[in-house]
């Protein structure tokens, strides 16, 4: 685990850059626990519509909230929603994908045709319908659950493909012939291959749920009283901040959102580079021969950001 992370830091500039940005996000997350304000009572605490100054570094909103501290809560809440969504979505995805892959046969065929159909269905209108009906009663937790329940079809397809390929590898056959139990093969032999994919997949789950959260909250379908990135944009827009020149209210959440998705995405880029066997070869030769990758600096640079 640690060597993996060390290698990633060493050989992938995008991973390095991504984790730096995420460090910033993590700092916001930690700060939210040391906020001078109570997360439930942010409004009418400070003077309204103040531009950024020494007292309020990101200004204040039209509801009398300190933008900076509200943003720390927003980052925390949006991440909470995403974590719930990712755990549920990937949980269902991994289980169904593995079951499909290992059982095969009729179960697999039925599952696949259902999943193929679900993938085509656009999820946003469905979420809007649910959000519109549950309006007001959609807390950050239930929003997370909802997003998770709609985001498992595509991942499960990928896990199934992974399992199918792992099942046919020589080492699986060797394990089967040497009398290893199925559970042991799955846990000891296959899981180590699945976990890196899970990591990359978890990140794409984060990207999806952050996007959906921002969208649903912007449409006013989430709980508008708990600060999230989306609700901050919603209220900024509600008070017409763009048109009256109070853009700081909107810029803070927008920058926070971009930092979050960019940090996650760059990390996943580094990770999938790491998973690519061709790139791994480059890395191994680099480690064996001292400066093997230095003879073609252009190549190294080129690989830097490759997804």
């Amino acid at each position: 685990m640690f060597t993996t992370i060390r290698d990633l830091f060493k050989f992938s500039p995008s991973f390095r850059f991504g984790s730096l940005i995420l460090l910033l996000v993590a700092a916001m997350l930690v700060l939210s626990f040391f906020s001078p304000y109570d997360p439930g009572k942010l409004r009418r605490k400070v003077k309204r519509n103040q531009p950024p100054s020494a007292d309020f570094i990101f200004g204040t909103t039209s509801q009398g909230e300190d933008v900076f501290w509200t943003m720390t809560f927003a980052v925390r809440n949006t991440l909470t929603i995403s974590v719930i969504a990712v755990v549920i979505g990937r949980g269902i995805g991994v289980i169904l994908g593995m079951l499909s892959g290992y059982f095969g046969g009729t179960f697999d065929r039925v599952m696949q045709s259902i999943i193929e159909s679900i993938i085509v269905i656009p999820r946003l209108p469905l979420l809007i319908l649910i959000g519109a009906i549950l309006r007001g009663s959609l807390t950050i937790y239930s929003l997370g659950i909802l997003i998770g329940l709609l985001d498992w079809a595509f991942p499960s397809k990928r896990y199934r493909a992974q399992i199918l390929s792992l099942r046919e590898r020589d080492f699986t056959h060797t394990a089967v012939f040497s009398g290893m139990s199925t559970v042991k093969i799955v846990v000891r032999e296959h899981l180590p291959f699945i976990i890196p994919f899970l990591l990359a997949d978890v990140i794409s789950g984060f990207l999806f749920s952050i996007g959906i959260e921002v969208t649903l909250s912007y449409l006013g379908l989430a709980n508008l009283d708990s600060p999230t990135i989306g609700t901050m944009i919603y209220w900024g827009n509600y008070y017409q901040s763009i048109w009256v020149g109070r853009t700081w209210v909107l810029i803070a959440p927008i920058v926070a959102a971009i930092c979050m998705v960019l940090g996650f995405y760059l990390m996943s880029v580094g990770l999938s580079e790491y998973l690519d066997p061709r790139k791994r070869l480059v890395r191994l030769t680099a480690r064996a021969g001292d400066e093997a990758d230095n003879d073609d600096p252009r190549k190294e640079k080129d690989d830097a950001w490759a997804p």
Partner: protein
Amino acid sequence: MRLLDSYILPRIAQWFMVVFIGITVTFLIPRLSPINPVDEILARMTAFQTMDPEAFKTMRETTLALYGLDKTLIEQYVAYWQRLMVGDLGPSFGNFPRPVTEIIAAALPWTIGLLVTTTIISWTAGVLLGSLAGYFHSRRWAQVFERLVVVVYPVPYLIIAFVLILIFVAELKWFPLMGGSRGDAALTWEYISTLLYFGFMPALSVVIGATAFRFIMAKSLTTTEIASDYVQYAELAAVPRRKIILFYVARNTMLPQVTDLALSLGLIFEGALITEVLFTYPGVGFVLYNAIYNGDYNVIMGITLLSIIGVATAALLIDLLYPIFDPRVRLR
């Protein structure tokens, strides 16, 4: 005939399945929710007036009966299908008694126009630029472009559109924010130019995200493809590089791109919905936004249903065209 059995029929069967799931889900969601939509609607209608309790009770019963909500779930489900078969989605609550189908039909051309234009532009641009950047990966412009794409790709549509509005509409005032056109609809240059002018920003915001996605996919496909023997052979044979990339490599990466287009149509559609809301573009997304605010459940349900069926149908059409592109499917 084998093509029909092994490819076309299963695809059509899948289409029916998608539509069935979509219709069933949109039927179940409002009915399984803890909040009764009828009570919500009535609460809205009676919010600013006092009403005779008897009249309120009658009104509630009438509304329940109008939706058939006083029957059992199975009966409702059958009735729902019967209404759908004749294309009846019920009346709108926001603009009573205008039928939902009429409202959606009026907005649909805008969305389809936006969707078709942006899909064509982003797909072509993404595939072309991606293959070129994948082939000439060590050139300066390819690297700069790629970095740009990596930054833009993960950002949600809504944020992209918001940033565009902040810069080009609010700050520079180059583009308008409201509406889809000015003047009377006619095939004159004046009208069409306003159409382009008003549609430019909404289209751009969708195109940016969709192109970035397509670019990344095209680039990684090309990177794999240029390692093939035939590319090396063509290079050794001194075939012009432009020809190698456009006629050999890009053509081979086209197939997964077509398959993927069918799968990602839903995403582009979602992007178009959001863009319409942000730019007050008069399409389905904007109607949906207004419906959310007015608690117009019939319209929301109609649009959800329509988007599921529409996206599934478009995906089916692309899949049915697939054998034209791929001789392997055709000859199987």
